[in-house]
């Protein structure tokens, strides 16, 4: 009886040890850290890959693109997720530390601009979007809508999406002071569905199934035609992002400290291959061109 209990205990401890230190048993261990935008997709990749290759252990953590790249420079991660390009300053720092960051595009992300479905406005130019979010345009009548104040919603400043939108659409100008910041795209979708005068942005796939939320078409400038990030039958339009016809999209990256080889290379190739890209679609981002 007692011996039985002890053997059970020993087994439990062993089982715990195995779950906590998979590396020591598996031998091959990959750590990935960085962008919160990519973290869910990264974990899904890791799970699926580990199921197919049980000898490899992959750990994926978030923290933000900056955190990931900092870890790359410090040599504490095998790969960094980033929802933005690495900065020149960061490449310099990495080189000083003896690393030569290699860039890998792993997916695309279309950002949709959304309003309440009751809003008559159907399209906006990039310049109008800049005017709206910097606070120079404050009434819907200035952009072809009814006379009503524009209520701006944005993500928290921690978000890579916040920074991408600020850099790409707003040309690095500050958000208007009355721009409300909400945590997460679901809070934004909820706010827009309840606010007839609201405007916000976020990953296109997220808004597809949301009630009372309308995805706007965007024009590059006054002369070009308006393009929607979604197709007529309500899916994310991959073609529009690939061709650049829809202007607000970005690459999602992974960075490695050197040219990848061995297990890491196999993993990255798998991500860029059909299986990895299928997960990209499942999560709601745009797969790389030519992967399907």
């Amino acid at each position, binding site marked *: 009886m007692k011996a039985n209990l002890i053997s059970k205990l020993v087994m439990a401890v062993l089982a715990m040890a195995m779950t906590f230190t998979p590396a020591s048993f598996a031998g091959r261990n990959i750590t990935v850290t960085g962008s919160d935008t990519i973290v869910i997709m990264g974990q899904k990749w890791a799970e699926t890959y580990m199921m197919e290759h049980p000898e490899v252990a992959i750990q994926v953590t978030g923290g*933000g693109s*900056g955190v990931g790249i900092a870890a790359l420079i410090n040599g504490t991660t095998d790969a960094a997720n980033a929802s933005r390009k690495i900065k020149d300053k960061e490449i310099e720092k990495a080189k000083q530390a003896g690393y030569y960051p290699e860039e890998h595009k792993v997916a695309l992300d279309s950002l949709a601009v959304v309003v309440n479905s009751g809003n008559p406005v159907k399209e906006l130019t990039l310049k109008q979007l800049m005017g709206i979010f*910097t606070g120079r345009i404050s009434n819907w009548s200035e952009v072809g809508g009814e006379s009503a*104040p524009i209520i701006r919603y944005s993500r928290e400043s921690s978000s890579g999406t916040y920074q991408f939108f600020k850099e790409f659409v707003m040309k*690095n100008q500050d958000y208007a002071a*009355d721009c409300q*910041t909400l*945590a997460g795209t679901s809070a934004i979708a909820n706010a827009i569905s309840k*606010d007839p005068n609201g405007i916000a942005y976020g990953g296109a796939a997220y808004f597809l199934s949301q009630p009372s939320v309308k995805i706007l078409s965007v024009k590059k400038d006054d002369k070009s035609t308006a393009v929607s990030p979604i197709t007529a039958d309500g899916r994310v339009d991959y073609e529009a992002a690939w061709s650049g016809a829809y202007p607000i999209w970005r690459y999602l990256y992974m960075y490695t400290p050197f040219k990848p080889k061995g297990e890491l290379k196999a993993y990255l190739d798998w991500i860029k291959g059909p299986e990895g890209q299928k997960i990209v679609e499942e999560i709601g981002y745009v797969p790389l061109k030519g992967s399907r």
Partner: protein
Amino acid sequence: MMAQDIGWLKPPLVDSSSTPSIYRMTRRGNLSQLLTLKTFRAGEWIVEKLLAAAGMISILFIALIFVFLFKEALQFFKTVSPMDLIGKWVYDEYDEKWVFKTMWQAISSVPKYSLLPLLCGSFLVAFPSTVISAVFGIGCGIYLSEVASDKTREVLKPTLELFAGIPSVVIGFFMLMVAATPLQDIFHTKFRMNAFVGALGVTIVAFPIIVTLVEDSLRAVPKALREASYALGATRWQTIWRTTLPAAISGVSAACILGFGRALGETMIVLMVTGNAALVTGNVFSTVRSLTANIAAEMGYVEHQSEHYYALFLVGAVLFVITFVLNIFAEIILNRMRRKLRM
């Protein structure tokens, strides 16, 4: 005699084989009895000191938090001038002119750390909520202490305590999903998420605190005062209004101050329902960003030991000082009342 003194320690049925050694020892010579007593006293001494230490530890913790918070917060001034806490002159390339911006925008090409919008936000939420909960809380406190029958009180008090037990995230979720839209329709506000919605949510948290403290301070008023008032021919209402309430007024004000402190410190409700746009405004129906919500929203990603990191500590220090001063104030008022009522 000694054995008698500690006789109560003995269990009712003494079986020498199974009794613990301490009891057996008392049956031996005087010396060992004395030793047992000594150990007992020593035990008492240890317990006493432990209790004292438990009390002291809270003071120690407060002191350590104080030191740590301010140590980190003061680092902020290494890189930023104190003037930036009010506002900053920024060149607007689009309009080609210099503008004085009182904004909190830590992530920007020119980081701006004005505390004005955050202070505005905190007070626009805390002040209305304190006023509302004070009006209803004092009324409810008077009712509970002076008017209600024992039976009513037995139902009402636990209900109020239940109120205090609602997690603030639940209140926030309710205000956001259920209350915000009807409130916007009633008051025709520009923003659906605004300081007033937050204030109503915080009221649910501050109200039970004020009620409890008001009731306590009214009950602390000596019965003799009320009886004297009745003896002079005053009605119950006159007694409450002219005798009991004035006698307890310091306690009532302390209750309001503590309620205000609680409202200032509330984070989750404010973060969820006020929209978090850092505006300098006096409009209670505007979207605001409070000191607490600002820390909660930004601490998750802030770069360790950066300027922004120290700025958040500074916000925390400011919040701490405000609530600390409020609490001390309330404590002084309460002490004064206790002394006065002892007469």
